[in-house]
């Protein structure tokens, strides 16, 4: 009796093995094969941004697929921070997307580590940059290699509520100095109830960069070191603290709630009447704030220079590990140069990189688009060249600036100590 049961269980075990193992094997095999046949190629394309932006981009991609029926494009998008986390994981897993959206803060990180293809050679040569402003096109070059091409152009700018500033007797659109801005911001705060004049800019790396440029300095040197001293940062934070102490700028807890999305920012939540950002974000800010907003140049330094530059709003790049570099390059070229794309995506990411396309769009622009074109056209002669590509670790420096300044804003640290901490940690992070 005992023996039969034993034999039976043994047989049952064999049956189980026979069932389970093939199941697992088919599972594994199913994971392995995912390519379609028939000469068609499939490429993956990812970007960051809101759903509205995604809808526009998907329309442009659909048009591309119509024109290139042999190429199938799979798209996906996420919010800015999540985008980088996902991209890092995919890249580490050896399967980066074929076409990807890159930011200048991370260009060195990915380009310098051979994740991105050099578009000056191979398939990338098919991407035409003939009609792109050469200075703007050069912003995608790092250590002699073209790792990315600009997808749009924008400019650091001040977004503000004209009604609030007019009531305070100021007109930012005509240009201000930092002193007159401080005064105006204080007046806006005193009449605005809960609303302060400006979102405290001590946390913003872009504003620090512009402020440094106004004095002929730079944030990063071409060698990838800090281009400013502790004294410079000290003066910058003193300026920001002057705004905060006179209640022109947002209180510390409002400043700490800042994150890069217009919907979540103090201006978007009506807690301030102006904020430093990029001009192409005007519609998003307006939607969040609800009042008609406008863009203005940065307040200028002593010599009248606003320090603004032609900024690559974001880049397109091709993965060095992509098996479909030709199709990928084709998509990039289409997104950068096709006039139809310009019409579809508008100024969501900034101005079209292709100057011919841009001129055509500018002529037909209405509403917020027109505001942007007019703003950039007026500014164009004054715009400088973009700074060198920030070094590896630039993404971390931005966060470092934010949290060390928060220590100052909350009164937990003197400016001296905060500057020391920033400089020590930044130099460690960039070495």
């Amino acid at each position, binding site marked *: 009796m005992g023996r039969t049961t034993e034999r039976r269980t043994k047989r049952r075990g064999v049956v189980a093995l026979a069932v389970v193992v093939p199941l697992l094997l088919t599972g594994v095999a199913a994971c392995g094969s995912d390519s379609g046949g028939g000469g068609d190629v499939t490429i993956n394309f990812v970007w960051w941004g809101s759903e509205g932006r995604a809808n526009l981009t998907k329309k442009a991609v659909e048009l591309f697929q119509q024109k290139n029926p042999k190429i199938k494009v799979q798209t996906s998008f996420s919010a800015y921070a999540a985008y980088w986390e996902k991209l890092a994981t995919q890249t580490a897993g050896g399967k980066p997307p074929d076409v990807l959206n890159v930011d200048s803060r991370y260009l060195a990180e990915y380009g310098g*580590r*051979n994740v991105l293809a050099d578009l000056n050679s191979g398939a990338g040569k098919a991407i035409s940059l003939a009609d792109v402003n050469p200075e703007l096109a050069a912003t995608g070059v790092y250590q002699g290699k073209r790792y990315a091409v600009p997808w749009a152009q924008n400019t650091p700018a001040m977004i503000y509520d004209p009604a609030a500033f007019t009531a305070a007797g100021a007109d930012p659109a005509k240009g201000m100095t930092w002193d007159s801005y401080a005064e105006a911001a204080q007046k806006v705060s005193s009449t605005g109830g809960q609303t302060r004049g400006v979102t405290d800019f001590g946390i913003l790396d872009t504003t620090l960069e512009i402020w440094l440029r106004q004095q002929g300095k730079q944030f990063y040197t071409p060698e990838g070191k800090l281009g400013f001293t502790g004294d410079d940062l000290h003066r910058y934070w003193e300026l920001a603290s002057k705004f905060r102490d006179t209640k022109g700028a947002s209180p510390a807890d409002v400043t*700490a*709630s800042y994150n890069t999305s217009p919907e979540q920012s103090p201006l978007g939540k009506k807690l301030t009447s102006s904020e430093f950002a990029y001009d192409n974000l005007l519609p998003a800010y307006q939607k969040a704030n609800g009042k008609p907003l406008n863009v203005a140049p940065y307040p200028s330094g002593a010599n009248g220079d606003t320090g603004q530059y032609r900024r690559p709003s974001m880049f397109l790049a091709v993965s060095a590990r992509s098996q479909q570099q030709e199709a990928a390059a084709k998509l990039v070229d289409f997104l950068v140069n096709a006039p139809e794309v310009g019409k579809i995506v508008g100024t969501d990411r900034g101005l079209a990189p292709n100057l011919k396309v841009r001129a055509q769009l500018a002529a037909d622009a209405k509403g917020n688009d027109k505001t942007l074109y007019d703003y950039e056209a007026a500014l164009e002669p004054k715009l400088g060249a973009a700074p060198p590509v920030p070094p590896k670790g630039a993404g*971390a420096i931005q966060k470092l600036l934010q949290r060390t300044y928060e220590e100052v804003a909350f009164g937990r640290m003197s400016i001296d100590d905060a500057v020391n*901490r920033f400089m020590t940690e930044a130099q460690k992070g960039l070495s």
Partner: protein
Amino acid sequence: MTTLRTPDPPVAPPAPAARGRRGRPAGRRRKSQPEAFAFLTPWLLGAVALTVGPMVVSLYLSFTDYDMFTSPKWVGFGNFTHMFTEDDRYLQSVTVTLIYVLVSVPLKLTVSLLVAMLLNTRRGANGFYRAAFYAPSLLGASVAAALVWRALFMGGGPVNEILAFFGWHTPSWVDDPQFSLASIVLLGVWQFGAPMVIFLAGLKQIPAELHEAAAIDGAGAFRRFRHITLPMLSPVIFFNLVMEAIHAFQAFTPAFVIGGGRGGPADADLFYTLYLFEVGFQDFRMGYASAMAWVLLVVIAIVTAIVFRTAKLWVFYDDAEDRK
């Protein structure tokens, strides 16, 4: 004494600890059982491929400098020495996490025990209350709960308004370094359902005769709680303490969401796991992140071991005599 013996320990989990090495049933030596392994195969494959494998790799990575894109470079104990000697943010993350563990765990255990005692009566609606009080725990480490929490405690949110009504004007809790961690502790405490249910089960196992006898001898409610409930419940407290401490060390989601994905204002919510995530997935220092993960594992193991060691001093098993 034997007449008062409870049939079984109230919850299964503490039992292995109680039984110890001597208590293992002296079962017969088992022959190798291919069918058992056949049925275990899916789990075994999963465990090896998804847990053991990655752990071994991460142990290797913890001794390297690895940016995820280029191959890892061996640095020996470099990551570990950097952690303890040069990295101020690492120490900040340790401080924040320890404060969270030391404050939230006792609070959560106290609250869950109190609620369990309230619900341990024979009233009609108790079934409903039990479900209602347990519900927040179902949300567990969910992003949604943390988002709601952020909305409740932010500037101009309901908490601000209510406190202001009573004359206490506070800044935005989630955005102020002084209050931010407190709001996360409160979220942790609010999700007291799991330990509460276990406490409730434990309370039900305490024989009513003990309370009756003590009451007849003139013991008040507090004395009965102190000298009957607490000792009888100590194995359950022990189990909950271990589980909650481990959970608290690993807390991530609430800090990530409430702290705006970056360690909160001036790093006030920089939890250990959050810093680990940032180092690994945002700053591309996966070697360092792996080293951090292993240190956390070792620390949790040590803390758990200490709790187990001290258990002899305060955990009471009423059937301990039988086990010797």
